[in-house]
């Protein structure tokens, strides 16, 4: 203890002595008495200030020092509480203050650690406030804009005081407001300084608010105070419906309870949470976390979301499915169960990509991933999805067993890992896979999530002693949604068609499927790459496109090839243009990088993709290919629609043939059939199979308009086929029962005409005619009745 401190304490004792010791706080006084005491508060404040001025010298204060009442109030017991700040030459002396209690009987007590005495500071700071603000901004190095203009206050900074705050009742630091950043030896006990307030609240920096203390002469940053109240990392226990008994990385919040907030995973704030206001609970948008969604007791509505928090024991879940019907059950131990499973799934996926591939978080930048357990609405509560913009997954807490619609909660590891992988392939709106029916890219997106979900499961099940940075060679379950459907897996890897919807191999037209089904060929290719394909036709891994089978290269090599492919080669251009051919090439490039050209791994990639009808097998010849090739030049429809070049328009109720291309075969004949696989597998549109097909391939189109699917199969190689889309349109604008070029006249004079328009002037029988009508009519006339 140094001399200055001794002198301060002695002075405070001297102040306290004539005022006598305070008694315990009395009970609440009658309101009229309280009011009378409150009325005398200004006088009491003035009296205390006078007393302190009289004791200034004894307290080590000089002529430039003053203790100024900053605030005061009277409590219900009649005590006046006065907060006084220490000012030197008008500037606040940081950390030097007094709190004085004046009881109703006039007795006074001082509360405080002491005053900064003996300040000798002639003049003032030599750098400008603007320079101080610039120094603080340089230290912050914000990437986005400030939320407000910096404020700068001239202060006196005691360079040797301590700032840690410790709550002995809780036995921990309850509010971590920053670190003591100065203690630079050689500094004078007090220096002139500036206190600069900076605040950010944007997607680049997240939410943050700081005070920087800047040396008034040198511009050095003496201290940084982080004003956001942050939680403290803790470890709890969980009982998941799927995960079982687990430990959880949680947080101790400012109120002494715990939250499913894992500050050990995530260095950047979550973009979907960054705009939430700091509520003082200790919550921060940085750190993996799981929220729940409130429902109204019927599961039908109410869309408020809350962090799983307020848990005093840090023990989460009861291992049971959510009892959906009970209002408010989401926050109970039963409701926490889904949160436990989501947290386990998210962290496992996070750790998988981190340990195996060295990836920082899902997006590669350490951005916080979060999850929400959905309890509202059957279609949501029994489903799961990933939000690119908010970098968070939504996982249905399930309506079973209260409502048995055949599905359980969507919170098992493979489901959560599947969605989390979308955070890898689509980390932001600057880089994402287009995932909608109409694009092969959708299948690549979903297949990648399926594949890495399987790898995450295998990695999570590694035995003790297995390295963390490799995917074990053990076989996985080869399934997706193993527990989600109560009747069996959602999807299979070895033979995707076992679900009755997914194709085992690529064909032209697969893009019309929902990506979860068109994922089938990629799932199978990567599975076979890892585990091999059988030559036995009875085996589920056998492929007619690779009848001799192949030897797998193992989980780890397959995972590394595909991870490299999707992160370094298969780069989406935001238009949905990626195809399975692109995927094959990306995998070949990645395998060549990792294992060298001509390696067995590269050959295995060729064979694995060949097994799903994408490219030739290693050393094999090109395959027969049937396709609804791009028939158009650059016309209006080709510019309007991604699949425009292959769209075909034909008149309804006519005898005709769609156009198709057969490559790599001398016999280009095809057999036609109505409909196609995508009709039952998430077709892009409402698609029909109508009309009749004659033996010679002549299609008598039905009178019903709209999209129709037709399938052309190669005569030369019946394993090759293509599904095409034809839009049957009205071409009889003049209603003379003939569909010919003169009908185009009525279409033309109705162009962009809405009033007085006969709907039959539209190819769609619509009250509007525009360029799509013109383009479709011209295309249909030429296609239906080509001039040789």
């Amino acid at each position: 203890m140094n001399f200055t401190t001794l002198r301060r304490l002695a002075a405070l004792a001297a102040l306290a002595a004539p005022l006598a010791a305070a008694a315990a706080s009395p009970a609440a006084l009658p309101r009229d008495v309280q009011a009378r005491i409150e009325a005398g508060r200004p006088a009491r404040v003035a009296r205390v200030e006078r007393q302190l001025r009289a004791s200034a010298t004894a307290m080590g204060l000089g002529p430039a020092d003053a203790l100024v009442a900053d605030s005061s109030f009277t409590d219900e017991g009649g005590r006046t509480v006065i907060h006084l700040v220490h000012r030197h030459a008008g500037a606040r002396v940081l950390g030097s203050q007094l709190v004085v209690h004046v009881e109703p009987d006039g007795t006074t007590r001082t509360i405080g650690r002491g005053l900064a005495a003996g300040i000798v500071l002639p003049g003032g700071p030599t750098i400008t406030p603007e320079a101080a603000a610039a120094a603080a901004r340089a230290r912050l190095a914000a990437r986005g804009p400030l939320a407000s203009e910096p404020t700068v206050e001239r202060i006196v900074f005691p360079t040797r005081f301590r700032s840690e705050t410790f709550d002995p009742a809780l036995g921990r630091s309850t509010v971590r407001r920053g670190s003591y950043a100065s203690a630079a030896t050689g500094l004078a006990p007090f220096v002139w300084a500036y206190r600069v307030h900076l605040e950010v609240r944007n997607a680049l920096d997240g939410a943050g608010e700081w005070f920087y203390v800047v040396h008034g002469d040198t511009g050095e940053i003496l201290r940084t105070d982080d004003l956001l109240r942050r939680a403290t990392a803790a470890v709890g226990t969980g009982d998941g419906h799927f995960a079982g008994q687990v430990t959880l990385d949680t947080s101790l919040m400012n109120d002494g309870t715990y939250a499913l907030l894992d500050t050990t995973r995530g260095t950047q704030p979550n973009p979907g949470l960054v705009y939430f206001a700091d509520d003082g609970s200790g919550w921060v948008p940085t750190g993996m976390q799981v929220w729940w969604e409130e429902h109204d007791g019927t599961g039908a509505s109410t869309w408020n979301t809350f962090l799983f928090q307020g848990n005093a024991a840090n023990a989460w879940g009861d291992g049971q499915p959510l009892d959906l019907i009970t209002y408010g059950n989401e926050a109970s131990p039963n409701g926490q169960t889904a949160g436990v499973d989501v947290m386990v799934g998210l962290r496992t996926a996070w750790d998988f990509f981190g340990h195996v591939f060295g990836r920082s978080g899902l997006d590669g930048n350490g951005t916080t991933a979060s999850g929400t357990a959905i309890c509202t609405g059957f279609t949501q509560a029994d489903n799961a999805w990933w939000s690119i913009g908010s970098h968070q997954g939504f996982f249905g807490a399930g309506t079973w067993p209260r409502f048995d619609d055949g599905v359980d909660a969507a919170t098992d590891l493979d489901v959560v890992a599947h969605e989390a992988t979308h955070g890898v392939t689509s980390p932001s709106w600057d880089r994402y896979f287009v995932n909608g029916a109409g694009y092969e890219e959708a299948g690549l997106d979903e297949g990648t999530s399926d594949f890495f979900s399987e790898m995450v499961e295998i990695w999570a099940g590694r035995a003790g002693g297995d390295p963390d940075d490799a995917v074990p060679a053990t076989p996985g379950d080869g399934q997706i949604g193993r527990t989600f459907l109560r009747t069996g897996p959602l999807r299979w890897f070895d033979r995707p068609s076992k679900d009755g919807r997914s194709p085992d191999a690529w064909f032209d037209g697969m893009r019309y499927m929902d990506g979860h089904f068109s994922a089938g060929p990629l799932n199978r290719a990567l599975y076979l790459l890892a585990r091999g394909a059988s030559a036995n036709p009875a085996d589920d891994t056998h492929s007619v496109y690779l009848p001799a089978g192949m030897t797998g290269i193992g989980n780890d090599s397959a995972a590394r090839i595909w991870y490299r492919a999707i992160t370094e080669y298969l780069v989406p251009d935001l238009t949905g243009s990626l195809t399975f051919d692109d995927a094959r090439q990306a995998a070949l490039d990645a395998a060549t990088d990792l294992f060298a050209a001509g390696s067995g791994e590269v050959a295995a990639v060729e064979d694995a993709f060949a097994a799903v009808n994408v490219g030739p097998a290693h050393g094999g010849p090109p395959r027969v290919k049937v396709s609804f090739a791009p028939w158009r030049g650059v016309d209006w429809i080709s510019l309007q629609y991604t699949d425009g070049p292959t769209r075909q328009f034909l008149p309804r109720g006519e005898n005709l043939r769609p156009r198709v291309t057969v490559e790599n075969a001398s016999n280009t004949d095809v057999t036609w059939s109505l409909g196609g696989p995508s009709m039952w597998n998430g077709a892009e549109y409402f698609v029909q199979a109508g009309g009749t097909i004659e033996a010679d391939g002549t299609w008598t189109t039905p009178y019903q308009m709209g999209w129709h699917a037709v399938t052309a199969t190669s005569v030369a190689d019946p394993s090759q086929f293509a599904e095409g889309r034809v839009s049957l349109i009205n071409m009889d604008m003049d209603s003379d029962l003939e569909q010919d070029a003169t009908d185009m006249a009525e279409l033309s004079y109705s162009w962009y005409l809405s009033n007085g328009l006969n709907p039959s002037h539209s190819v769609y029988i619509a009250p509007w005619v525009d360029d799509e009508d013109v383009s479709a009519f011209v295309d249909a006339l030429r296609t239906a009745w080509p001039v040789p």
Partner: protein
Amino acid sequence: MRSFPLSAALAAALLAGCSSGSSRASSLAYTDPPAASGWRLVRDPSSSASRLVLALVGPAGTLTRGVGLNIQAPPGVRFATFDGGLAVEEGGVYDLRSVDDDPAEPLAIAAGLKEGNVLSAGVFQKDRRRSAKDSGATLLRVALEIDPSTGPLSGSAVTLRVLRAAAIPEDIGQAGDPPFVLARKLALTELDVAVGTLEAK
């Protein structure tokens, strides 16, 4: 009725006899219709020895916004395409683009070969903001060629028929007209097209 199998030798003799008097034509000769006015198909100067190009010409002073026709050629005479693959060519009279003049916009010009060797072709202005044009010029062209394997015999007359022709008239109402007025005016003008004589050579 009894039938007798036709021997290969007899069949060959009959075929030889059929072709002994004349040979198949290799070109088409066309004489314009006598009418000097009205709607008519006339020989276009771009025709060649092997390719007959016919131009649809209307009466001078008649304003239209587009024409279409269904024209039937006899067996062995086929319709041909122009540069760009279309079996119809515009005459340069109509403004096929909208006033916005978007290079990518679709144009209402098309042709298809329907059953019975009927070419259905049309060229139309789609934008009512474009003015109607004088029809007294070549409005569209179609091309004919002899199929050397199935074409008619040289010297034989062949018939070319216009099954239907129609034009968009000048008055198609205004977009702001009451619907019942507009609906009455949205009607095509049926055309009587004079066709000349066609001879296979």
